[in-house]
């Protein structure tokens, strides 16, 4: 069984340079690139017009954006090593976290569902949790790992678990209530590009340069199964709202959608061989699961009506 997708819109000149960061709420599609601005396109509107621009967000460019599920807050991480907090209701900047430790510059970021907690992973492998409702942001947890560059982090929907992926292939799951490491997932030898908790918080999807999407059971720490089919580094993995589908994007320009029920790849998208740095499902509005991907351009995909939606 497969899904049919149509390219709904491609915004070619959204940014001057490659787009690295993507955050999707029901209102806005936030994108960050090598330029100093973060752009907000409308998510709902089928024409996806540009509705706002955060100017001078990151002087050297922005490489990660995380949004809360409620859509009220976003955080962005820039190449200069700082992290900025954005209020998406009033569309304004709302503080920043500048890590005092120079070696511990922030790289990866994630936000909890309500936006109150922020998880950061830094160059030296430190994983920290911040309370963004406090001003200045209060550090709640500080997990030490093996001093290996942190490429990605994620928080579970209920905020109880944190996961980090590292350059040497290390994946760690932390229990935020006890402040202890729950699992150290082994077996992956190459850089981990993205980790993502399923909406229920029971599974963790891991992808990276090993070209496989590995699915772990969070509580046992066992690898449940994996998806194979990508032929290059996989840069991002994201779940659909229901947890039925996974979307992954890879360096060779392919975006794949995987069904958790049939455990197969149901669609492969992408004609160019330009890297797709991130892909994400849009919040569900109709019957289909729509997508947005970023790389050299922002591309929206619409699921063709009439095709099987499981």
């Amino acid at each position, binding site marked *: 069984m497969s899904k049919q997708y149509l390219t709904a819109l491609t915004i070619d000149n959204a940014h*001057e*340079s*490659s787009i*690295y960061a993507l955050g999707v709420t029901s209102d806005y599609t936030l994108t960050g690139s*090598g330029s100093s601005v973060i752009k907000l396109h409308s998510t709902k509107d089928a024409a996806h017009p540009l509705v706002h621009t955060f100017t001078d967000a990151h*002087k*050297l*460019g922005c*490489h990660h954006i995380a949004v809360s599920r409620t859509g009220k807050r976003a955080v962005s991480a820039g*190449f*200069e*090593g700082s992290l900025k907090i954005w209020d998406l209701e009033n569309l304004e900047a709302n503080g920043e976290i500048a890590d005092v430790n120079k*070696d511990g510059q922030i790289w990866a970021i994630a936000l909890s569902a309500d936006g109150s907690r922020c998880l950061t992973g830094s*160059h030296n492998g430190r994983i920290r949790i911040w309370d963004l409702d406090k001003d200045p942001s209060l550090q709640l947890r500080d997990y030490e790992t093996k001093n290996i*560059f942190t*490429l990605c982090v994620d928080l579970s929907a209920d905020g109880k678990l944190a996961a980090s992926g590292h*350059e040497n292939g290390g994946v760690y799951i932390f229990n935020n209530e006890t402040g202890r490491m729950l699992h150290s997932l082994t*077996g*992956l*030898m*190459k*850089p981990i590009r993205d980790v993502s908790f399923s909406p229920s918080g029971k599974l963790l999807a891991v992808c990276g*340069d*090993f*070209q*496989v999407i*590995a*699915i772990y059971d969070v509580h046992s720490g066992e*690898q*449940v*199964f*994996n*998806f*194979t*089919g*990508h*032929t*290059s*580094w996989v840069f991002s993995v994201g779940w659909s709202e229901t947890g039925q589908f996974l979307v992954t994007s890879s*360096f*060779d320009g392919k975006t794949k959608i995987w069904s958790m029920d*049939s*455990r*197969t*790849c149901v669609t492969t998208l992408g004609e160019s*061989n330009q*890297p797709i*740095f991130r892909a994400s499902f849009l919040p569900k509005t109709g019957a289909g699961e729509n997508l947005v991907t970023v790389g050299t351009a922002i591309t929206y995909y619409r699921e063709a009506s009439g095709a099987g939606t499981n």
Partner: protein
Amino acid sequence: MSSNLEDLDDLELSNVIDLYQNQTPIKDDGSEYFGWSDDDGTNAAEDTSVCIIDESQFLDLTTPIFTSTTGIKIQDTLPTNTQIPEILPPIQPADSSFLLPSLQLPSTTQNLPEIPHSTAAPTTVTSASPTTDLTTNSQEPELDLASRLHKVFLENRGDETITIIWEEPDNSSRPSRWVLEKIDEVFTAWLDVIDSKGKLVIKLRGCERRTLRSRSQPKWVWKTLVYPGPCQRDNQKFGAFVRLLELVREAIKLDKIYTKRDIYYKDVALFGSQRTVDNLVDDIASALGVPRRSLHITAAAKGLVCGDLNIFKTDGSIINCCIEGEGVLIPSSTDIEKVEIKDSDTVLIIEKEAIFRTLAESGDWKRLPGRPIFVCGKGYPDIATREFAHYLYLTKNLAGQYLDFYCLVDYDPHGLDIFTMYKNGSLISRASGTFYEQMAVPALRHLGVKFCDILEYCSAEGNDGSASSGQNMEDTGIVSTGNEQEPRNKRVRYTSSPPQGLLPMTLHDRAKAVSMLQRDHNTAVEHTDDLRKLLFVGYKAEIQVLGDQLFRYLDEKLGGQRIGLAS
């Protein structure tokens, strides 16, 4: 001993020279050791503090070192010296072992003739000195013979201080004879001081190296050399200075040119590091107000060139750069009369010598589009290489056209930095402004290796990007316990097929990339985007990543550039 007495002055001179040359080299960064490190502000302060040490303080510092006690006492006395504390912690465990032999032995052996000298030549001894000698003797009965002799040696020094100040306005047309005179001035003064047991102070007006890198006016700092210095370090410093002057003198007399590297290898133990030589040469040139060339010292030739051109040198010789198999060393710009380019219309600047050699040896350049001239700076280019590139930039070929310039560098922050150095001139010469125009090649284009090239040329063998992953999987590793969409992939570890031969970015690379982004983010768009990709993707690559695709790569890239397909 009696034979030694016969020629006292000569003996003393040789002893003094021994003092400089038989030093135990301290295993420390030489530049810091000599106080000529980059932060000259602090060192200048140290130097002046050394100068104001008076004779009595000088004795306090040195006498305990010559007692026959153990290293513990030495450690007690060291902190009173203004210069030692910064290097004290690393050498503390070992200092008793190296200070005692190196200081005591020379003093025992070399100062033995002192007593006869002081008695036999009473004209140079002040009347007070024998009494001082007696009192110290009674106060400190534990002093052994050697230390007492050394004290006599020190106390017998006259009050005479000769000060030489080198502070000449810049004038590049001074003849070598003038430089020789200045050098002889120092040697004469030094001999006088040895003879009269006085003190020699040499002040050099140097340029603070920090200001070379900033945009401000050069700031003058004084480098002071004292003989005899209050500690061993000063003596070694002075020794290095004198040895360098001697070599400059020799070079001028013999009309030879020494490279800075040559000079370092003339006396590795004395100079300690190449940096010491470089800094000393710069200081002397700056103090005398002459260019380095007038001292008959140059930097070693580093750059290579290969291609269809002839270099006419000022001495009348012609270098044919067309010799297959090897490049030709790029001569200094002052030695070049003119360059004759034949039917090449492209210059390819290559970062790495290995790639340059590969291309030069194969002779493939003759078949490449534009018959490129290869220029190689071996990493960060030196002045001569950049001046040569600039010279080519201003020269027309036989067909009367200017050349196109391309740059092939590693895909890493340093490679991109080297590209900007050729294109814009270096930061240092940018500061002084005058050299900027002479050394840059503003029309230089970044040929590669680029991010997209890695995708295109370095995918798994024999395919162009759309490889099937199945071929590249091997056993072990991840257990697939679930779905068997492709059953043969069970129990396999996946090696990433495309692109291959990449290296992970280190923290140093990341810091370098971020600092380059800070510097260039609002000026140069093309390479800052590459820097961000380096940071985001986390892999760098060397030119060698192209492997045997190198020729095909150059053929297609240079061809593409020429017919305007360049992206």
